[in-house]
């Protein structure tokens, strides 16, 4: 397919890998954090870790929305779905994420709660229109990529006076999470592969503060394997030259200022949320959004007076440390034994973007990783 196949060419990948090996200083190590789960999976799926030298290590970041959503937010949604006569709509990624007491939306649905998987936020609007005598709640999650579509449906719902529709807002923001990880310093990273489609919305300049304050090289990278390799090379050059700047490899869809129409729509419907809890990162100030007053009749937390729920996370699960880039998935004693994609104990094993799911699906075959790329060329 156009704009995908050209960025997956195996022969070019090998040449880039050679350039990375030539650039890498053998006398040191490089710890590069890929912020997004989409990058984590590209790195594993295409065997990129095996193409780069051993002293270059990819550290997985927190850019997986279902992974960073604390169990209590899911538990609150389950209580809403079972306690009130609502139709709860959400993206498929969330369905199997563990909530309290080994529960999940999937299990609540099996018990009879009306929980529906949707492909688009507009599907939730359609369900509300088709069921005028029922309350329909859209359980919205995601970083800045997924926030504008939610903003769009809020605006449509208000214009249509669709009074049986509301949004349970769990949208979070990338730069505050990045700043938190850099501020703690515990992941000991030398450079960051910056988000692809989050950056399409917020623009490359959104990371200037992080890069400047923490003297951190950042390269906005596309999700395809050649994008990841080209960005890795750009990061190594910055590091070796002792520079730190925000550079943009993903020029075809990321500009310096981002999608301003989408930003205006988000500003109109959302405002900063003073505090929001992230799994792994804790409670972070100004790291998420909530629905603005002008749209408060569509705020499910207000409409149903939803209460915060404290849920103890599984004690054996090291998802929090994995999300901070401090531990690797295979360092968890549950990994691959008690916790598998079929029976996940932690969120990072559920999501198709989670680091544990990537290690489980691709990492165990490390001896043969990279063959998919070779087969294509």
């Amino acid at each position, binding site marked *: 397919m156009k704009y995908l196949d050209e960025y997956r060419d195996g022969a070019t990948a090998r040449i880039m890998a050679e350039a990375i090996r030539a650039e890498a200083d053998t006398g040191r190590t490089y710890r590069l954090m890929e912020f997004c789960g989409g990058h984590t999976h590209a790195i594993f799926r295409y065997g990129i870790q095996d193409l780069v030298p051993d002293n270059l290590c990819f550290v997985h970041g927190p850019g997986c929305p279902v992974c960073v959503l604390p169990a209590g937010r899911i538990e609150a949604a389950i209580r809403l779905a079972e306690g009130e006569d609502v139709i709860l709509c959400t993206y498929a990624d969330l369905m199997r994420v563990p909530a309290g007491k080994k529960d999940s939306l999937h299990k609540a649905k099996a018990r009879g709660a009306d929980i529906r998987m949707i492909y688009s*936020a507009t599907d939730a609007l359609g369900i509300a229109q088709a069921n005028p005598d029922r309350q329909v709640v859209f359980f919205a999650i995601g970083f800045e990529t997924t926030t504008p579509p939610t903003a769009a449906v809020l605006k449509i719902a208000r214009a249509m006076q669709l009074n049986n529709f509301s949004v349970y807002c769990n949208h979070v923001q990338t730069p505050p999470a990045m700043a938190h990880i850099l501020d703690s310093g515990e992941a000991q990273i030398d450079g960051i592969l910056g988000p692809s489609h989050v950056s399409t919305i917020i623009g490359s300049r959104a990371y200037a503060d992080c890069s400047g304050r923490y003297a951190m090289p950042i390269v906005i990278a596309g999700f395809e394997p050649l994008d990841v390799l080209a960005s890795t090379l750009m990061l190594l050059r910055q590091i070796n030259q002792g520079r730190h700047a925000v550079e943009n490899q993903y020029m075809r869809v990321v500009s310096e200022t981002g999608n301003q129409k989408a930003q205006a729509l988000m500003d109109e419907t959302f405002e900063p949320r003073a505090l929001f809890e992230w799994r792994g990162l804790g409670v972070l100030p100004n790291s998420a959004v909530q629905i603005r007053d002008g749209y408060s009749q569509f705020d499910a937390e207000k409409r149903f007076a939803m209460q915060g729920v404290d849920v103890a996370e599984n004690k054996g699960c090291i998802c929090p440390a994995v999300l901070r880039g401090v531990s690797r998935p295979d360092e968890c004693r549950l990994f691959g034994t008690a916790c598998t994609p079929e029976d996940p104990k932690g969120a990072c094993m559920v999501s198709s973007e989670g680091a544990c799911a990537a290690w489980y699906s691709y990492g165990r075959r490390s001896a043969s990783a990279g063959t998919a790329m070779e087969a294509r060329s």
Partner: protein
Amino acid sequence: MCLAVPARVVSLDSEAESAVVELDGIQKDVSTVLLDRVDVGDYVLLHVGFALERIDPQEAENTLAMFAEMRAADA
């Protein structure tokens, strides 16, 4: 969750702010409410039923030209 795929715009309904896009032979109705402008034949980045951004063909070409230079230097 942040994955988005390139799709070609087949037709536009400017009143409804929507488009029909084609993706590997499949056609789909998507919202164009997040775009300033879009034309038939453009490629857009598709995410949860919304076109997030137009793909800039010139910038895409520049990136591919950089790849080609690396291959040429290696040959």
